[in-house]
């Protein structure tokens, strides 16, 4: 998943969409190898019985030892996530904050998680809550020694449901036009890819779920990886910021949005063109 659908400055939070369990297995093997080589603690979370997963991974060099010493831990999905119908975003993020801290305390260099979360996002209400969690944990991952691969089964969920979650990852193999993820410095969130009418509803939902908060009356969107933005998306950003008592600031490499803002006379949407 280092292909086209990744932000230039992606951190370690990826969304893997798969149709073939072999693709998930290959990614699992890769994550175990990367984690052990880097001295990280590896969590493998999924719907299956841990022993069944362990049997499949037995041939991975170092796996059995690592599992014995706690460098690789296997969980059923309902052990790692609190699942009372829908996930509670706040407590779920706190669980990974604690897990990261404990991994570091145990001498690991960080925490690497691969979670097959299909069972947690089957209904619209579950997806809404989980999408909110995905974005909150994305902020933690961006700034702390944790990485995560969130895997979803397309055969079960379908493209539309997966898009709701995939667009909240800096990196994905899903067919989504844009991605909204944690930003740096004063940027509340970062936007990547392209925003046009075909993903207008998806973007509106992602923005509401991410709930970026203004700082000192400014809501800064880092759009330096956003290749295209149309007037509808600009109006949406402006409206969201206005509703939160702030001025929207779009930070971009391209002057085109600034021309659009000028044409439309959007005085309360600022475009900062950075090199």
């Amino acid at each position, binding site marked *: 998943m280092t292909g086209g659908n990744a932000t230039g400055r992606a951190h370690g939070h990826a969304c893997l969409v798969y149709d073939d369990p072999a693709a998930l297995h290959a990614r699992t093997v890769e994550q175990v190898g990367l984690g052990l080589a880097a001295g990280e603690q590896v969590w493998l979370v999924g719907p299956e019985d841990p022993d069944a997963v362990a049997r499949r991974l037995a041939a991975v060099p170092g796996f059995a030892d690592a599992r014995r010493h706690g460098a690789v831990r296997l969980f059923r999905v309902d052990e790692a996530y609190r699942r009372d119908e829908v996930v509670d975003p706040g407590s779920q993020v706190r669980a990974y904050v604690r897990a990261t801290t404990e991994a570091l305390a145990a001498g690991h260099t960080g925490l690497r998680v691969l979670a097959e979360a299909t069972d947690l996002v089957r209904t619209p209400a579950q997806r809404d809550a989980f999408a909110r969690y995905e974005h909150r944990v994305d902020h933690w991952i961006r700034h702390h020694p944790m990485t995560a691969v969130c895997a979803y089964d397309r055969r079960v969920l379908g493209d539309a449901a997966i898009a709701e979650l995939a667009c909240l990852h800096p990196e994905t193999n899903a067919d989504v036009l844009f991605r909204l993820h944690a930003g740096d410095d004063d940027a509340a969130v970062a936007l990547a890819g*392209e925003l046009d*009418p*075909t993903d207008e509803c998806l973007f509106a939902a992602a923005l509401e779920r991410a709930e970026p908060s203004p700082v000192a009356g400014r809501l800064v969107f880092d759009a330096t990886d956003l290749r295209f933005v*149309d*007037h509808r998306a600009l109006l949406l950003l402006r409206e969201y910021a206005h509703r939160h008592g702030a001025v929207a600031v779009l930070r971009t490499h391209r002057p085109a949005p600034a*021309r*659009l803002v000028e*044409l439309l006379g959007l005085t309360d949407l600022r475009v900062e063109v950075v090199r």
Partner: protein
Amino acid sequence: MRTGAAAGHVGYFHEAILYDSDDHLLAVVLPFLLGGVEAGEPTVVGLGGRGAEVVRRALPTGAEVTFLSGADVYSRPTAAIRAYREMLTGHVAAGATQIRIVGELPPVVFGATWDWWARYESAINHAYDDFPLWSMCAYDRRVTPPHVLTDVTRTHPRIARPDGSHEPTGVYTDPASYLAECRPAPLDPLQHTAPVVELVDPTPARAREAVRAADAGLLPPDGVDDLVMAVSEVVCNALRHGTPPVRMRLWCASDRIVVAVHDRGPGPKDPYAGLLPAGDGTEGGLGLWISHQSCDHVTHHRDADGFTIRLTAGNAHVPV
């Protein structure tokens, strides 16, 4: 109180000057401008290089007349409407009871791009009717082609003459009717060649990518971003409001990129589509309006086969 020939008129008083000498031009324009100055009305000249000089020399020193740069004002019709409406709004807010403007389109627009300027001349009868504006559009008969003069008389209610008369052109056509007519624009010669891209029912993203790939550095970066924006909007409109299939074709030359988007529907119903922002943003009106300001030429073409919108970025003034 409005003064001069437009006294008592409500809204836009739109006239043409069809001149054949500098003396003819000055005989109409000088009294018009000086009358405005005398009445304390904002008085504006938007003539091209030579015309502006002729008028400037003839005006008394210190006359309170504003000279606009004609080339800047008249680069794209929709931008001209936007700029003039902003200027007029400002004058009215400052208390003006009438604004006088004499303008002249540069002769280069009488060629391949005349169709959108004909639409402009018609649409402004509506677009400037919110303002107490008296304007004269000067056309030099010696360089204006006959088909352009025909459009000028159909889009201007009156002609101002050197004898001080302001006579109806007699063939003036209401803009809603004029703009609804089928007015085929000449084909760009590139359209007689095979397109370098041909897509059927492309997603807007696919259409944008095709423009970026075809550009390969041909246009300046801002120019290609603007064309990408315009193509995206017209493809969205065709997919949403048109009748399938939507066909996008693209041609490249060393100085321009031409994109035509066709669907089998009748095209936008709004006669002012592209020239004025659609009030409520429905039917893609805002996107079309943005496209008209992001490209160097936009044509609308209707026939039995459907509706085609053609966008040109780069040199639109090609021999046709």
